[in-house]
């Protein structure tokens, strides 16, 4: 290893530094409640980041996740207010997620439009649908069990969403790093033609991944509704950029074919701890995002710093 750090190595070092710094500088940092809040506050984003890892390794991108979250959350509010039983509504919302994801996937994989363009359009479109439903209203007053699911601990102080996140991580880790599906995800992301010639239905695979992304976004939208107990048209707008930032910081190549879920997890922990630490020190929002931005660039540049001795060329 002639590199000064590996990407993961660098991220891990960052995490260690940030964590210790927080623990020293902010007395409340280590408290159980804060450690849980730290996840809860961005639980939807980090769940989306897990699936976005698949999308980007597959050499695609999904800008519509924030809007799909909004659409699902607003649909929930709208239908619940109309008196539809919540469990049914939840199924409907998830179905919408599947449909929306499939839509993105179909236009990308079958029609061959760039996903950046397709999901840019649905970023606007899905948001629009949410808007059509709720117009200028905000809707709250969800069933208690639903609100409780989002706001109170399920096992001890640990809330449902956090458990879901952990479970999802394990499942997706196995799927990406151990399964044939994951292998295909890498190959298609690295060179789609080669995958085509190897008899892989790449279009189908891409559609599945976009559908996963849509489903995850719908699920995240519901978690959000449960956590904040009210919804309105602008729910989760702009989340997509935070999610993508996390994934890229995790070392997933925007050009596809490269990256790991462990990297994503590390970057999730970094971003969350960094934000939480700065918040505890009353550092304002725009400085926080600024710092994350710098870190994002550093995470690419610093691992590139070579030891003076033996220089490797980038492999052809």
């Amino acid at each position, binding site marked *: 290893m002639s590199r000064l750090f590996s990407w993961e190595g660098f991220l891990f070092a960052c995490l260690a530094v940030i964590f210790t710094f927080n623990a020293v500088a902010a007395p409340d940092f280590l408290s159980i409640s804060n450690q849980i809040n730290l996840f809860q506050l961005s639980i939807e984003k980090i769940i989306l980041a897990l699936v976005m890892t698949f999308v980007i390794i597959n050499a695609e991108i999904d800008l519509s996740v924030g809007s799909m979250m909004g659409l699902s959350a607003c649909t929930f509010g709208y239908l619940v207010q109309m008196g539809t039983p919540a469990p049914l509504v939840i199924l409907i919302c998830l179905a919408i997620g599947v449909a929306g994801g499939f839509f993105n996937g179909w236009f990308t994989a079958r029609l061959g439009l760039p996903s950046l363009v397709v999901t840019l*359009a649905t*970023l*606007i479109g899905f948001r629009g649908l949410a808007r059509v439903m709720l117009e200028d209203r905000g809707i709250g007053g969800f069933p208690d069990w639903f609100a409780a699911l989002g706001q109170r601990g399920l096992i001890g102080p640990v809330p449902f969403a956090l458990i879901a996140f952990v479970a999802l991580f394990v499942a997706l880790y196995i799927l990406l790093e151990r399964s044939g599906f994951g292998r295909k995800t890498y190959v298609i992301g690295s060179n789609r033609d080669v995958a085509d010639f190897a008899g892989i239905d790449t279009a189908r695979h891409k559609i599945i991944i976009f559908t996963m992304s849509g489903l995850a976004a719908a699920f995240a939208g519901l978690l959000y509704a449960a956590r904040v107990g009210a919804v309105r048209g602008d729910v989760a707008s702009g989340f997509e950029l935070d999610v*993508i930032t996390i994934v*890229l910081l995790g070392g997933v190549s*925007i*050009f596809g074919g490269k990256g790991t879920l462990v990297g994503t997890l590390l970057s999730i922990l970094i971003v969350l701890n960094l934000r939480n630490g700065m918040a505890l020190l009353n550092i304002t929002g725009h400085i926080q995002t*600024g710092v994350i*931005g710098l870190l994002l660039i550093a995470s690419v540049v610093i691992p590139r710093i070579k030891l003076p001795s033996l220089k490797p060329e980038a492999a052809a």
Partner: protein
Amino acid sequence: MGLISRLSPAALRILALLAVLAVVLIFFATQIEGYLNGRLFNRISSSVAIMALIATGQTLVILTRNIDLSVGSVVGFTAFATGSIITNHPDLHPLLLLAYAALLGTAFGAINGALVAYARVPSIIVTLATMALYRSFLVEYSDAKSITTNSLPSWLTDFPNLPVFSIGAMEFRAGFTASLAVVILVHLCLTRLRPARALFAVGSNPEAADMAGIDAKRVVFAAFALSGLMAGLAGFMFLARFGTITVVAGLGFELKSVASSVVGGVNIFGGSGSVIGAFLGAILVDLLETSLVRWAVVSEFWREAVLGALILLAVATDTLLSRRLARLRAKKGDTK
């Protein structure tokens, strides 16, 4: 068919796009009475002036297989900084002020370019980061003051709407005419100047560009610097047109400019596209937005939904259309 086989794919794209534009115009003309008139032209032209500049810069970057998400923040910052300079030195020479805005924008662009080209950081990462950074600079720099119209000299605030010349009821105002001139100038450079072709080469096949002795790094750097310059000019226009500048100035321009470019048939994977296309794309998006507000059939709240659908539709038709035509051409090409 003969014609089609002689036209370049780029020209085909433009034609396809013009067709889409025409369809949209005709459609709304049937929906809204008193729609097709000089007033519409004036509205669209003066409001598209700013996005046209940004989309042009964005196109230069996309051509090199990169993307610039920081343009919105650059517009915001330059607009504000330029505003505060002129507020504090009201008798500063107009050209100096313009130069200041241009310089500021170029500087921001150069930072992006250096990181992408020389530090070899993927552009989406760099500009995602600088989008946040530059916006933070603005919040710090502004220190919660905002620039107000009445603190600006009248030459500045009047500039965008000065009628230059007019065809019937269609006024060509200074703001629009200026940015139209810029767009045309850039287009001419792209198509006529040898160095400009490197932009396409790098976007089309970076490795090959390297081996063909093209300094890809310098080309990419230049593209970002120019995109910054365009954003800087746009910032100047933004200040002149809206007068009041707060920390949210230019928020969301990044995605809108990307939308304009891709709707304008610029290939998001680099190598092909034209600033004229991006310009038409910007017009199309703007036209849709304003027309939808005026369209009685859809409520205010339908706007985004319809807009999203229409953008997708526009891109899909444009792509499929030019793909089919290109295939026809290729067939002809073979048979000789």
